[in-house]
């Protein structure tokens, strides 16, 4: 079976500064993988290498079984990078049609393909303008359109919703979701809730090193924990009562959000324990605003990165 991505000992240095170090990664298709890590973790560098925009300093990379610079994968992999810009002084729609033609579309087919994608993302109104006449968000949405031309086998998206207003971000997420059964995705984002929402797997990078490649369900749900939001900050009595429950391993409060409590517990009857906690809280005169069992992706990522450091 052809793997989506396969890297062995992949490293990249910008002069003396290492951006990626010894990345060994094997991703099978079809999949929607999140790529997460702090600023400077090497996410954009990894996506750039996978798309052939930059070359690795050492190691090997295969995308869809081929070298990223090879002719065989051209048009099968697309990318949206944060710092890629359309040509100034030329309508974006002409540039999109040019990209489609480079992917093998005839002139008319290119027009039809672009018109269809613009309609799906509600971008048709402004695609005829030059890029310098568009807002940052509009250019970003048109950048997303270019990444979906010809339904590539692999779509690499670098922060696809960063800087977009909530409605536009929602549109983009919805648009991506409609393609997840047709194409494979690698999506880099600082918004881990977005990754959790769209992706099934996650690659975690830290300081250019691969920390983990795992299923999100494994990472987010492997520990028993309860994240609780109350209507107000918990009293000492409530915290004492909760910490005295025999199943409790740890109890954490959040100084920034004082109404939030996280309980870590060990119990084979998690449903029964959850009900017990809810009852205790209500008996103490508090209201439950939100309750989530299992870890959120953000906690899983933070735990892994902290453990690595």
């Amino acid at each position, binding site marked *: 079976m052809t793997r989506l991505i396969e890297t062995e000992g992949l490293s990249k240095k*910008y002069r003396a500064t290492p951006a990626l170090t010894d990345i060994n990664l094997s991703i099978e298709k079809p999949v929607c993988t999140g790529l997460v890590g702090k600023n400077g973790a090497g996410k954009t560098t990894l996506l*750039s290498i996978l*798309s*052939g*925009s*930059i*070359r690795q300093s050492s190691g090997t990379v295969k995308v869809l079984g081929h070298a990223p*610079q*090879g*002719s065989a994968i*051209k*048009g099968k*992999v*697309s*990318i949206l*990078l944060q*710092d*890629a*810009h*359309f*040509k*100034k*002084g*030329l309508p974006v729609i002409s*540039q999109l049609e*040019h*990209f489609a*033609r*480079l*992917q093998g579309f005839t002139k008319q087919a290119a027009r039809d393909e672009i018109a269809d994608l613009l309609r799906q993302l509600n971008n048709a109104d402004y695609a005829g303008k030059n890029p310098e006449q568009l807002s940052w968000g509009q250019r970003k949405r048109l950048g997303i359109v*270019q990444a979906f031309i010809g339904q*590539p086998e692999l779509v690499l998206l670098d922060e696809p919703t960063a800087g977009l207003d909530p409605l536009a971000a929602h549109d983009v997420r919805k648009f991506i979701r409609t393609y997840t059964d047709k194409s494979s995705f690698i999506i880099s984002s600082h918004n881990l809730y977005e990754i959790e929402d769209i992706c099934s797997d996650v690659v975690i990078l830290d300081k250019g090193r691969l920390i983990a490649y795992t299923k999100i369900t494994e990472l987010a749900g492997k520990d028993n924990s309860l994240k609780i939001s109350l209507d107000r900050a918990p009293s000492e009595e409530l915290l004492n009562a909760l910490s005295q429950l025999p199943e409790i391993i740890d109890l954490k409060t959040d100084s920034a959000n004082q109404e939030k409590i996280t309980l870590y517990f060990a119990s084979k009857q998690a449903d029964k324990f959850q009900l017990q906690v809810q009852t205790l809280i209500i008996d103490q005169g508090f209201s439950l605003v939100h309750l989530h069992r299992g870890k959120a992706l953000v906690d899983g990522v933070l735990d892994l990165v902290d453990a690595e450091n």
Partner: protein
Amino acid sequence: MNWRRIALITVFDLRCSVFKLKGLIFLLPFFLFWYLLLREFYDGIATRIQSSEVLMLLSAKFDMDLIARLLVDHPPSLSAFFIFGLYSTPFFAVLAANDSFASDLGNGYFRFLTARCQRIEIFLGRYLSTITLLAAALSVVAVAAGLISIFIEGYAFSHVLLYAIQITSVLILYTAPHLAYMTIISSMFNSAIAALFLGMLAYISIVFSIFILNILFSETNSFAYLLPSSVKASLIGDDGFAFAVAITSLPAYTLIFAWLGWGIFRKRNF
């Protein structure tokens, strides 16, 4: 390598060049220069050049037979186009090709292309676009000079046509290595302005270095052959063998410079 993609890149880049700043930086000075020069020929300077006093003056510097061939046997407007074309080519090549890659390396545009084309296709497409632009511009001037030769200087149409084709082809061939030289410069910078000024500076520096080396090692003139401009005299001259060597050396210069440019371009981070 996919020739369809190369053709698409060539045509698209030409479209961007003709009406955009990228092209106007070359086209405006180019046509202004030739307009001012050809206007002199339109006003009848040719007959003044062909006067015995001027020919005598020129013979002090150049071979008399050569002057006679260029200015009397052939239409002087076309000959002037040929000679001035050879001398101005390095300057116009820098203007035409400074932004072959530089701006798009700076703004990340190539990242859209690398997902769809190989780097060699981008490199060749952009080079072909620039040479096509210069060839088209030279052809327009050749047509103008040819019309002056027929209607003002009174030369036969067939003679003018053959001579115009011959010298325009030589000029285009002579332009090719200069544009290839600019692929080296344009691949090195992320800004068209930087490529423009440093392209000129580098060329002038090489010419000056050759001049100094030729003084220091006066027994040999071989340093001049570092640049294609060394064959200029052979392209103008009467010696058929020297002309043949000069013409065949131009593709060699082109390949060497383009190979160096490609060496930089293929390793660049987009």
